[in-house]
């Protein structure tokens, strides 16, 4: 058991992977709460795919990834925003049409550049290939994102629960939306090289949704979602190391298992626990009625 925990730590790349996943857990745990509360999974999926060409361009040309992807993120957000204004096609179809096209552009770029870097490495992230400079970038970006979130958390919360009321008290609803999308985009951008396109959705959505099964309070929700992301991330790294699996995908599978456990066994309203309680309740009721009848 101890060996299971200690052996991986002898490899330096595991230190970096653990540090990176720990930093990312804090950021995605906090941002993810709002993604789940506002139902923005599809938008985050679209963002992560749409930033993909930026990852490719940065890999091929050696340009700074953050700069390229920030530009790409802004372009795509504006494009999606413009297209979704059109009421003729639904919001979903608009997002889907735009992001698949931009994603395809990334794939075309890879095929055109005949890059010898494997596509799957870019798609699924290289958690075991992050360096200390990546970790440092994540820390800096994370601190900025968290400071902004902390400074205006009340406005965000009000805006995501009751837009009409928040507009009535004079909050700039559209501005807050845009700011949140920007924070979400930045979160996706820093996480992408480590965990990849699809896995980032799971990191954003699964921990807060799991936490949501366990509590209703926002503060606890945030803390729990960070903790769940952290546990899933660390467990995923260990499993991937020992079983030689794709690390990003392993983290997601662990997170999904945690969600299912919470879904079935949550003490408050798990599917199994509530059924048991109902069973007990009806047993008690039966006993009570039978006693009444006997009397």
């Amino acid at each position: 058991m101890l060996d299971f925990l200690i052996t991986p730590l002898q490899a330096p790349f595991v230190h970096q992977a653990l540090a990176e996943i720990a930093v990312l857990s804090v950021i995605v745990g906090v941002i993810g709460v709002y993604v789940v509360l506002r139902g923005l999974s599809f938008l985050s999926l679209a963002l992560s795919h749409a930033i993909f060409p930026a990852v490719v361009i940065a890999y091929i040309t050696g340009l700074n990834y953050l700069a390229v992807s920030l530009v790409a993120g802004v372009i795509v957000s504006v494009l999606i925003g413009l297209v979704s204004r059109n009421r003729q096609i639904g919001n979903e179809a608009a997002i889907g049409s735009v992001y698949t096209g931009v994603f395809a552009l990334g794939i075309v770029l890879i095929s055109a550049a005949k890059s010898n870097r494997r596509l799957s490495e870019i798609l699924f992230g290289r958690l075991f290939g992050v360096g200390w400079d990546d970790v440092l970038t994540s820390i800096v970006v994370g601190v900025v994102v968290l400071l902004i979130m902390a400074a205006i958390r009340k406005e965000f919360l009000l805006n995501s629960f009751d837009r009409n009321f928040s507009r009535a008290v004079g909050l700039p609803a559209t501005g807050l939306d845009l700011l949140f999308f920007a924070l979400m985009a930045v979160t996706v951008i820093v996480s992408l090289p480590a965990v990849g396109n699809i896995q980032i959705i799971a990191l954003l959505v699964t921990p807060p949704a799991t936490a949501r099964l366990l509590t209703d309070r926002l503060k606890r929700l945030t803390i729990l979602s960070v903790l769940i992301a952290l546990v899933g991330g660390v467990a995923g790294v260990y499993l991937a190391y020992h079983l030689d699996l794709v690390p990003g995908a392993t983290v997601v599978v662990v997170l999904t298992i945690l969600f299912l456990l919470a879904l079935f066994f949550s003490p408050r309203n798990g599917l199994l626990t509530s059924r048991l309680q109902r069973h007990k309740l009806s047993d008690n009721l039966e006993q009570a009625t039978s006693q009444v009848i006997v009397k």
Partner: protein
Amino acid sequence: MSQILEWFTVPFEQEFMRRALQEITLLALVSGVVGTFVVLKGIAFIVDALSHAILPGIALAYLFGFSLLTGALVAGVVVALAISAVARSGQVSEDSAIGIFFTGAFSLGVILISKTVSRSLSDILFGQIFGVSEGDLWTTLLIGGGMVLVVLALRKELLLSAFDSQQARAMGLPVVGLNILLYVLVALTVVISLPAVGNILVLSLLITPAATARLLTERFYRLIGLAISCALLTGIGGLYLSYHAGWAGGASIVMLSTLLFLLVLALSPRHGLVGYWRNRFYPGRTTPGNPSQGGS
């Protein structure tokens, strides 16, 4: 002049290009028809989720040697049931439930394939349009043909339940059954597109042509016709592009498809930006499709 002609004819002297053309034509027909309903119902996210979620089924099919079709269908049904069960329990919103289960299933698929299947993951994810076999063509023809017949037979019922499920229910239509039918049709479309475009880009095949067509017409049959035409146009254009430039086949088609969509969005007289600006700056004229905007 002859050089231009050659640019168009030379690619199709190759057997693999002819097969790719046949396959993309069949897929354009099927996805144009099915995609119209996907766009009308606004279920792009769940379609995207399903197309990702079938990956573990494909991996298991490779592993144990049963047909890809069975594996993908079973995985799709399991994930769809899990999503709707969790969303119905009311604990987690449908949006989150979709996000959780499709990423989980997809990651499981990635792990299974990377551990066990010798075929490269990117072939499965993005397809090999130039590697389509005779058998793939027959599968697409038979299953796709059957699907189109089913949709044509049930077109009125499907349309009504897509537009107004309340009304459809009031008229005694089996709305839940029709929804399930639509999901099965989507899953089948994903499966037959797998060899050619893979399971990530198939979403584009399903929604982009139909969304483009939606900008151009309000009539149902024209919508289907235009969706198929858009899919054909960009499909064939993509084949030429990837043949001459050496780009990835499926991705070239998808990219062209989105370009066409954006172009139509900008220029469409009814619902495009041009129409919007015209209404805005010349408010006296009303466009036939959009009377409500005319007066403001």
